[in-house]
């Protein structure tokens, strides 16, 4: 694909998207589709615009985002540290890896009832749930990244007489980074999903609760606006992580 045609194609695909939304708008105005289930996009955008001027919306937005970030960051830190420890020690791996494999297929949301019983329906439960669920993708991918280090790199670091800490910091960590980021990307998706699910269950202020309330009151324009906001959070957080990854992995040949 030539670079010059890239922008034209992007513009064309935007035109398709806008056309699709316009078709929807037209169908809604002609009442070919139910205005309760598929409200005209203009109404959803209006509702979005109104919410942007509303302090309550920003409170919910901040709450959801801060829980998500808090859960994600603690999962990332713990996951990478533990993962590095397990991945670098074959002796430890024999004992721990089978257990990790057992936990891997467990749906993240299934642990919510346990945390509700342990902690109660509150903010701490939500953050714990997010952190716990996002921990596994980071941990499993970090273990994989550290255990599949090219053996020759380790030999080189031995010849260079690097200390163990230097070896981890200068050789093992960089070579495990692509795997770690694969895990982080999964964890980011999980953290947003769990933030929404846990808020729906706990009924605390947040975007997840917002859309539940909107649906219950048949305020479908507000519901769509909420879905758009959640989609935007998913989109932009992913881009942010991608940027960080590109920056940290810039030494790799493209």
């Amino acid at each position, binding site marked *: 694909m030539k670079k010059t045609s890239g922008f034209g194609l992007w513009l064309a*695909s935007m035109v398709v*998207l806008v056309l699709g939304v316009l078709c929807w708008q037209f169908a809604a105005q002609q009442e070919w589709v139910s205005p309760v289930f598929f409200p005209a996009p203009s109404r959803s955008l209006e509702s979005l615009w109104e919410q942007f001027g509303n302090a309550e919306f920003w409170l919910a937005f901040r709450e959801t985002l801060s829980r998500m970030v808090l859960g994600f960051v603690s999962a990332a830190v713990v996951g990478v540290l533990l993962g590095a420890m397990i991945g670098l020690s074959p002796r430890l791996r024999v004992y721990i890896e*089978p257990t990790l494999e057992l936990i891997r297929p467990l749906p993240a949301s*299934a642990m919510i*009832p346990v945390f509700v019983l342990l902690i109660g329906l509150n903010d701490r439960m939500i953050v714990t749930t997010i952190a716990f669920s996002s921990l596994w993708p980071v941990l499993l991918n970090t273990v994989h990244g550290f255990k599949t280090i090219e053996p020759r790199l380790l030999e080189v670091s031995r010849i260079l007489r690097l200390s163990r800490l230097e070896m981890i910091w200068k050789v093992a960590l960089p070579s495990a980074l692509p795997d770690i980021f694969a895990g982080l990307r999964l964890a980011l998706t999980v953290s947003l999903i769990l933030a929404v699910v846990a808020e729906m269950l706990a009924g605390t202020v947040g975007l997840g609760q917002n859309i539940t309330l909107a*649906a219950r009151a048949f305020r479908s324009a507000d519901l769509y606006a909420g879905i758009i906001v959640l989609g935007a959070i998913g989109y932009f957080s992913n881009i942010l992580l991608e940027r960080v990854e590109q920056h940290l992995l810039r030494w790799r040949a493209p």
Partner: protein
Amino acid sequence: MERVIKGLLLPACVLLVWELMARLGQLQSESLSYPSAIFAAALAVLLDGSLLKAAGQTFGGALWGLAFGAGMGILVGVAFGLSRTLSQLMRATVESLRPIPSVALIPLALLIHGYGFKLESSVVAFSCFWPLLIITESAVRGIEPRLLEVSHVLGFNLYARITKIVLPAALPRIFVGLRLAAAVSLVVAVTVEITANPMGLGYALIVAQESMRPDRVFAYIGWIGLIGWLLNASLLRVQLKWFGRMGNWAEQSS
């Protein structure tokens, strides 16, 4: 054999310490229960048939959603894979829909379908659509170009080209996609049940939590994990049997 024993050592120790702590009154047993009670509860829900009924409901919702979502994903993926122009034109639309977290659609699906199978399977379908779309598109694009040239020389029409060349050639990777999506479908089905839908394993979890029965909560979590693990293991076997080494290759390139 030694590996198995070493692998089981950690979970066995955890269970033992847990049991002892709970027996000695060191844990809040009203929220954590203890392993022997959990095993008893796991057996009880199996014997009184409630597990089978709940699992059947969850599987029903997950399977319908998987069939519909994955089917659509494969169709669109083949179309995108065969026509680069179409794929480029739809890019903005795809990129704006894909980051929406599937759980954000639960209130909408609830509004449209009410409680029941349709609620669950529509959310599952949305989340299974994307992985299949992406894997199918890249699988179709990766087909040996000479095969497509052959089909041109033979004068195949579009239908024959797809059924005789494209689908068989892309099948190993599509199957890998289906396996991943099957795991996703189970997770999403359970999540929908936990958040909204009063049926299946997820709802059984919530009922157990709300009636303050931590033994049942853990028992259901154990069963859900086991079911997920069995599902993946059996699909892996099918993959190995049908595609052999092709499957391994597909796994790595997906």
